[in-house]
């Protein structure tokens, strides 16, 4: 990394003398070259991380990252910033744990503060069935070497004193599990940090450049048509979340994906009152408090297909009802903003990372409601898949072929919220 670009206490002091008016742009805005060694379509977290690891792990630096808008303003800037790796199946545990481990060192690696806060992530049980299910998950997760434990009611009360633990509530809480390494990070910083680090290694980030088609000759991809002209590359990786089906349609194959809005909302800022992340499958909400004091909450997807980045009011009402059920103390808190992101949902709620029917065209999609937590791991294995033309061993189970072979990875219960 170039010295003059490195962020530190000294660069902060130096720039303070100039009233912070002379900071260099964090990444360039270059003109597109006619050809690259690889193109990544999609400037969200997954695309940016892929470009970064292509350059860092595989030495492929002649890379263009193409984004139709500004980077990081899709789902990367619209999620509830929750990070965890407490997944049931071995395949999922491997990829989400890789991601969490990379997150743990990311601020240092990128020289960019991602504000990772491993405050612990609590999942609630409201029935005997819930309780047995989370106990089973805790044991499965521990067998994969990932931290996870059951909490007694006394420990839960100590951890979250404001949680409604009355046995007389509509859906009484009867137990909980926790992943202590789970937590949150600043979502914008993930996009900006990866963008800056990728740019530093030579990746051209082309914002406001929309892909309008692929040039495919004899089953091999030759490049992409964009609103700024044709750009050639022997390898093209697509990481466009909700728009994956639209791009697959351009390339001439079908995907098992439906695009749905996933909504989230924040309250007015409050003083620090809630220092973990809480999830409940039965009353269906997940909730944390941001560093600015806002309560951040979300739940399941809207049931119908949509490409409009807004959520439907019935879901909003459900989320707030669930929040007030668990935290009667928040009943008078005002909501400030509500929004939706378009998530790409697979039939088995697991992602697709790997090759496609078109040679040289690679696909990374289907992360559905769990895209943010998986950014570093997804980028790491996808970069390997593109560089080697062979799936990374952690990505291999997540191939598109699993829908023909039947080797699905059913993670519908994974988020601790029903989908």
């Amino acid at each position, binding site marked *: 990394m170039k010295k003059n670009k490195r962020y530190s206490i000294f660069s902060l002091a130096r720039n303070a003398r100039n009233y912070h008016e002379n900071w260099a742009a964090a990444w360039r805005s270059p003109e597109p070259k006619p050809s690259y060694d690889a193109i990544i379509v999609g400037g969200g977290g997954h695309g940016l991380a892929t470009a970064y690891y292509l350059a860092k792990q595989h030495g492929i630096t002649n890379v263009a990252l193409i984004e139709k808008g500004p980077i990081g303003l899709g789902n990367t800037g619209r999620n509830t910033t929750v990070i965890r790796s407490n997944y049931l199946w071995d395949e999922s545990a491997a990829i989400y744990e890789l991601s969490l481990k990379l997150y743990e060192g990311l601020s240092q690696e990128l020289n960019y503060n991602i504000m990772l806060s491993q405050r612990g992530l609590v999942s609630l049980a409201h029935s005997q069935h819930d309780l047995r299910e989370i106990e089973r998950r805790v044991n499965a997760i521990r067998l994969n070497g990932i931290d996870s434990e059951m909490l007694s009611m006394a420990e839960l009360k100590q951890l979250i004193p404001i949680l409604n633990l009355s046995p007389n509530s509509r859906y009484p809480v009867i137990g909980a599990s926790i992943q202590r390494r789970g937590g949150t990070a600043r979502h914008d910083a993930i996009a900006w940090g990866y963008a800056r680090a990728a740019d530093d290694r030579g990746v051209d980030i082309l914002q406001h450049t929309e892909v309008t088609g692929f040039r495919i000759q004899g089953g091999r991809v030759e490049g992409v048509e964009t609103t700024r002209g044709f750009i050639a590359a022997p390898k093209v990786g697509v990481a466009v979340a909700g*728009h994956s*089906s*639209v791009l697959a*349609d351009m390339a001439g194959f*079908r*995907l*098992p*994906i*439906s*695009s749905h809005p996933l909504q989230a909302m924040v309250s007015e800022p409050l003083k620090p009152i809630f220092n973990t992340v809480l999830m409940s499958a039965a009353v269906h909400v997940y909730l944390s408090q941001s560093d600015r004091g806002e309560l951040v909450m979300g739940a399941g997807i809207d*049931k*119908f*297909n*949509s*490409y*409009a980045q807004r959520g*439907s*009011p*019935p879901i909003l009402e459900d989320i707030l009802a669930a929040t007030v059920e668990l935290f009667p103390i928040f009943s008078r808190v005002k909501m400030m903003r509500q929004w939706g992101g378009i998530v790409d949902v697979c*039939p088995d709620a697991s992602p697709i990372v790997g090759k496609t029917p078109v040679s040289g065209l690679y696909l990374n999609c289907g992360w559905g409601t769990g895209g943010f937590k998986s950014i570093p791991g997804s980028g790491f294995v996808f970069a390997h898949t593109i560089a080697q033309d062979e799936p990374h061993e952690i990505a291999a189970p997540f191939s598109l072929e699993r*829908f*023909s*072979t*039947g080797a699905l990875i059913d993670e519908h219960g994974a988020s601790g919220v029903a989908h």
Partner: protein
Amino acid sequence: MLRIECPHCGARDEAEFSCGGEAHIARPKEPDKLSDAEWADYLYMRTNPKGILAERWCHTFGCRRWFNIERDTVSHEILRVYAMGEPRRESGT
């Protein structure tokens, strides 16, 4: 909030309905003869257009009957409500 014109009950709020996903997926006539890829296409592959989608809805908290609609997935505008078994329009997806 969608306002959906149930063919039997009239216009009601979205909350009364369940969305059954893409319409017009016909069960294969000779399942024994399908390849794995054809099974995958029938079971899992979906038309997911940014534009007009034909989909099935059920008036779960009303007459409990199924019907089809054509809806724009960007504007959410409902362009047509029609009975199960009625063919899609040529202009639809």
